[in-house]
Every structure is written in structure tokens, then in C-alpha cells.
């Protein structure tokens, strides 16, 4: 079962690459999304999913990430045919194949229980998304993809060094070195502390680069700014969550070694710093897609901060991981529609989006309220849970800073987005370059409905998954 989840999308990626008909190709992505959703539903209902001698294990946190990223992918997979119909120039063959390849690799990341395998998968995800970023073939996207590749690869090389350090920590303890997560959890109490500490820092910085935590986030605004909506969604909702999952796995090793306190401190610092940087750069941001990138930096910060707080914040963090993924889908897909309709993503040119593309405009507005933590949407609930946990555990200063940053972000993001949405479209941009279609609007509406539902009522099976995931991270 564990292997099937990886192989099916991989085969479909190859099919999408090989079939000669450009009109059929985008629909293979849709088929892939729907088929994968069915397979994942079966896997999540199965209590024990593993394969390849313990190399692939679907653990509680992996289940959460696999579940929501698959739903997110399904939304993207319906958007792809609508999107590509409005983009006749680009290379659809590579685009569709890479989108499905990303799905396969993302599934591998959620299941990989060997640190080496996980590393290979995360690096492969960087490479598979590079062609998606360069889809529009402009000089700007060239610059973005160059920075993305170089910074991402360097960060991830540091993570590999961290993996080796971790292996060395068990070698020092006189244990047979192994990078299988189960062996590491077992060896953790005996590991050399200094090597474990060094390993954790390297892994946090390395995978933190992939997540886009400040100050390693510099690739993110460029990449997200130039990425097509689908690629932005897959990056901001899917791959960053995969990198966060990798950090969580290392964190579990630290807990098993009794070093949870050591691991939490740098996470709090990185988390607050990311929120701060995001807030500062969002104010006066002229490019609404780049602004979404800073919003992603902010929310990655909230995630590591939530883990850093420890205890009850773990549930809020896992819930927030899911909320962030879905809301980013709403934002990137609707922002992509607006970008195409206006032919620009600068606030100088784009005004009155609500009048010109009413559905996408309304979706972006709702997405903005959701992501900034306004009730009744899901992120409000998860951010509130994290805040509550901070106060409940007596970490008042961190709780206060957390709230302050949320307000700063709300103001900064609101100023830019409202100027895009409100007002009258200027006469020079009155012509709608790419009209809204059912396929480019409905996926975002579906995702928004999920975000709304998660804020009002969490279905029991989802809550069971989240509780199990949070329990494995509380470090008791």
C-alpha cells in the first residue's frame, strides 16, 4: 500500500509526459488527483501502513500531511486544465508531468522513514518544481528559479550534513549507526549530546531553508512571485509542509533523547523572527503575489513557534499546518486568476479586482480574512489554540509577541490587498485578458469551504488524526 501511493502518480507523470495529445494531457493530472484521493482515503483508513522493511511508514503526523496535501492537490488538478487553456504558449508536456511528479515525491516525503531517503525525496522535490517556476519563461522567472535552485540546494546540502551528524551521534555511542527513524528513536537516549545538538541545528537550518523560515527565506518572494498559481499552491501548501514534517521527525528524535528543551528554543526564535520579517516586508509591498510569499514565511514561523512552545500548542500547530495549506490554495489560485485577468501583479496597475473578476476578487478577500486569523475561518481556531497554549504554559511574553506580529501582518497585508480589490479598474486595464472560468474558480471555492468548515466544526475522523499527530509531538 505504502509503495502504491508513490508509484501510481509516478506512472501517471510518465504517461502525461508520453501521450502525444496536448488537449488530453491536463486531464491526466485531474485523473491523477482523483485516483490518488481514493488511494489515500484507503490508506488513512488502514491502521498500519508500511513498506520496504521499515523504510516507508505512515506515522500520525505523516497521515495528516498526506491527507490534506492530497485534497489540496485535487483542487489544483481541476485548476490545471482551466489554467493551461489560458496559457497556450508554455510547455504543457513538462508542466503536467512535473505536477504529477511533485505529487509522487510529496507522498514519498510523508512516508519516508529513513532520513537518507527523506533527504533524497526533498531534494528531488526542489528539482521537480524548478520547471514549474520557469513555466512562463520570462527573465524574471529565470532569476527566480536560479535563486530557488541555488539557495534550496545549499540549504538541503546542510540538512544532509545534519543527517550524517545524527548518524555519527549514534556511532559515538557505540551503537550500530543507522538512519532509519525507528532505530534513531531507539538509539536517541544514548547519543552523544554535542553531535546531536549540532545535527539538530544543521537540520533545522537546512530544512528551514526549504520551509522558507527567515532569514533563509530569500528565495521565497522571488519564487512565489513568479510561480503560476498551481505551482505556488503546491509549494506553499505542499512542499513547505513536507519540509516541516522532516523537522518534526528530527524533533521527535530530540524528544526521545530527552533534549526537547534544547530543540524548542531555536524554534521559538526562528518562529518569531520569521513573523517579524514577514510583517516588515508586507508593509508597502507593491506586488500582491510576493506578498503571499511573505504570508507563507509568516505562517511557517507560526508552525515552528507552535512546536517550540511545546505541550498543548502541538494540537494547534498540526491544525494550523492543515489550515495554512488549504488557505494558501485559496489565495494563490485566486491571485493567479487576478494576475492573468489584469496582466500585472503590481498594485500600481491592479485596482478594482472585485469589479473586474468578482469571484476571484471575493475569494482573495475571503482568503485574506482567513489567513490573517479572522473568525469564523480555520486559521483563527488554530492560532487561538497556539496563543492559548502559550498563555496556559506561562510563556506570556511569547504569547504577547505572537499577537503583536499577527496584528502587524493583518495591517500590512490588508493595506496592499484592499487596494488591489477595491476601487475602479483604470481604463487602461479595463479589458479582461483572461476571463474567469468554472475550472479556475471552483477549486478555490471548494478549498475556501473546507477552511470555513475547519473553523466551525472539525469532523471526527479528522480530529482523531490530528489528536494522534499532536500526541506524538507533545514530548511527554
Amino acid at each position, binding site marked *: 500500500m505504502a509503495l502504491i501511493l508513490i508509484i501510481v502518480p509516478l506512472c501517471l507523470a510518465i504517461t502525461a509526459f508520453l501521450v502525444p495529445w496536448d488537449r488530453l494531457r491536463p486531464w491526466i493530472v485531474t485523473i491523477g488527483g482523483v485516483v490518488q484521493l481514493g488511494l489515500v482515503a484507503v490508506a488513512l483508513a488502514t491502521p498500519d501502513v508500511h513498506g520496504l522493511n521499515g523504510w516507508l511508514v505512515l506515522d500520525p503526523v505523516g497521515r495528516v500531511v498526506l491527507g490534506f496535501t492530497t485534497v489540496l492537490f485535487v483542487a489544483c488538478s481541476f485548476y490545471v486544465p482551466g489554467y493551461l487553456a489560458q496559457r497556450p504558449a508554455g510547455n504543457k508536456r513538462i508542466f503536467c508531468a512535473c505536477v504529477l511528479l511533485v505529487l509522487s515525491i510529496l507522498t514519498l516525503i510523508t512516508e519516508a522513514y*529513513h532520513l*537518507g*531517503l527523506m*533527504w*533524497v525525496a526533498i*531534494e*528531488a522535490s*526542489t*528539482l521537480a518544481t*524548478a520547471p514549474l517556476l*520557469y513555466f512562463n519563461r520570462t*527573465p*524574471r522567472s*529565470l*532569476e*527566480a*528559479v*536560479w*535563486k530557488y*535552485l*541555488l539557495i534550496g*540546494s*545549499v540549504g538541503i*546540502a*546542510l540538512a*544532509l*550534513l545534519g543527517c*550524517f*551528524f545524527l*548518524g*555519527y551521534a549514534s*556511532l*559515538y555511542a*557505540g551503537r*550500530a*549507526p*543507522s*538512519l532509519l527513524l525507528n532505530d534513531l528513536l531507539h538509539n536517541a537516549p544514548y547519543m*552523544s549530546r*554535542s*553531535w546531536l545538538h*549540532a545535527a539538530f541545528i544543521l537540520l533545522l537550518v537546512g530544512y528551514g531553508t526549504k520551509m522558507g523560515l527567515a532569514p533563509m527565506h530569500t528565495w521565497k*518572494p*522571488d519564487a512565489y*512571485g*513568479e510561480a503560476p498559481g498551481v505551482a505556488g499552491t503546491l509549494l506553499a501548501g505542499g512542499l513547505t509542509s513536507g519540509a516541516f514534517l522532516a523537522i518534526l521527525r528530527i524533533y521527535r528524535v530530540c524528544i526521545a533523547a530527552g533534549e526537547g528543551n534544547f530543540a524548542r528554543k531555536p524554534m521559538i526564535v526562528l518562529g518569531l523572527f520569521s513573523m517579524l520579517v514577514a510583517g516588515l*516586508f508586507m508593509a508597502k*509591498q*507593491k*506586488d500582491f503575489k*510576493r506578498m503571499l510569499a511573505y504570508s507563507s514565511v509568516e505562517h511557517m514561523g507560526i508552525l515552528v513557534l507552535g512546536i517550540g512552545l511545546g505541550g498543548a500548542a502541538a494540537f494547534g500547530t498540526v491544525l494550523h499546518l492543515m489550515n495554512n495549506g488549504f488557505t494558501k490554495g485559496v489565495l494563490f489560485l485566486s491571485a493567479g486568476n487576478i494576475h492573468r485577468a489584469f496582466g500585472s501583479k503590481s498594485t500600481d496597475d491592479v485596482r478594482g479586482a472585485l469589479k473586474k473578476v468578482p469571484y476571484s476578487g471575493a475569494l482573495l478577500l475571503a482568503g485574506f480574512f482567513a489567513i490573517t486569523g479572522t473568525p469564523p475561518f480555520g486559521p483563527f481556531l488554530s492560532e487561538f489554540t497556539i496563543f492559548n497554549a502559550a498563555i496556559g504554559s506561562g510563556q506570556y511574553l511569547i504569547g504577547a509577541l505572537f499577537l503583536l506580529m499577527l496584528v502587524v501582518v493583518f495591517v500590512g497585508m490588508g493595506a496592499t490587498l484592499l487596494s488591489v480589490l477595491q476601487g475602479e479598474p483604470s481604463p487602461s486595464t479595463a479589458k479582461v485578458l483572461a476571463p474567469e472560468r468554472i475550472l479556475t474558480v471552483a477549486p478555490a471555492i471548494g478549498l475556501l469551504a473546507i477552511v470555513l468548515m475547519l473553523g466551525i466544526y472539525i469532523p471526527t475522523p479528522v480530529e482523531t488524526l490530528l489528536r494522534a499527530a499532536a500526541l506524538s509531538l507533545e514530548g511527554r
Partner: protein
Amino acid sequence: MAVIIDPLLIVVLLLNFFVLGASRMKSIISGSAAQGVVLGAIALLAHDEFGFQALLIALVTITLKGIGIPWMLGRALRDVGIRREVEPYIGLIPSLLVGALGTGLAILFAHALPLAKQSVGSLLVPTSLSTVLTGFILLTSRRKAISQVVGYLILENGVFIMGLTLVSAMPFLVEMGVLLDLLVGIFVMGIIVNHIQREYASLDTTRLSQLKG
């Protein structure tokens, strides 16, 4: 085994300095190629027994890091017709000094960390850290896209050396996966380098400065 491995590691360190001090692009690439070949030899010796696996990994390492990737970079270099790294952000002599300082610190740092019995006396850990630092210096101080790719390659070499302390823990498939990722990574970077050249008629990454804020 340390009798043979340590001198080879010193060769790796010397090659780091060679690459840091070289101004001709060709020398930078051949320096990294030589390092790849030496790494292949070390990988062969680091395995406890000369099995089929050790031989295969050594061969693949030499083929990729010593021949394949440098060949790809060399071709890219010929296509774009540049010879020298002009005006690096940090000059050649200062970067050599920084490299030397970094190597010293790496040795001190490796001494501060407790070393497992198996690798005491071996230069594996300090060489690894020093090579990683060399990669960083190249990545941050050079302007040409190809020099930056070589920097990434050398950074990876440093990580690879650290991996040799764990040869028994790294399954064969993962080692191959790491090498494959590296190859594909450099290949994709090569394609991008080519596009940068076509777009800007230059490989100077300072031209990549439209995206700000």
C-alpha cells in the same frame, strides 16, 4: 586504513585552496574534478571490505564528480566563452585567507566535538567541515553562475566526506540516490545557466537583480 586516507584528505584540503585561489574558470572546474576523483578513491578505501558495492560507489563517484559533471560544466563554459572570474565580491587572496582561517576553525571545532573511536586521528571530520566552508565561500563571493555551481559542488563534496564516517549506515540505494540528485541538480542548473546566458548575454549573476523587496 588511516595511513592512506589521511594523505588523500590532505590532497582534498589542498585542492580547496587551489580552487579558492584560481582565477581561470577552467582551473576552478578541473580543481573540483580532481577533488571528485580523490573522493572516489577515499570512498573505496573507507569501506571495511573491498566488495562489489564499494567498488561501484567509487566508480560512480569518480564518473560523476570527476568526469561527468566537470565535462558538463566545461561544455557550458565553452558555449558562453568566458575565461576568467572577474571582480569577485571577495578577492582571490582574501578568499584564500578566509579559507585558511575556516580550515583552522574546522580543525578546532572537530577537536571540540567528541570523536568516535573509529575515526580518532583521522582527518575526515575537519576536512569535511573545511570543504563545506570552501563551498560556501565560492557560493557567496563569486559572480559568475558557473563558479557558483562549482561552489555548490564542492559544498556537496564536503558533505560526502562526512558521509564516509557512516559508510556502514548509509544503504547503497541512498548513496546512489544522493549522487543521482546531485547529477540532476547540476544538470538543471546547467540548463538554467544556458538560459541566463541567452537572456542576458552574460553569466554575471549581478544582472539577476530585478526581483527585490
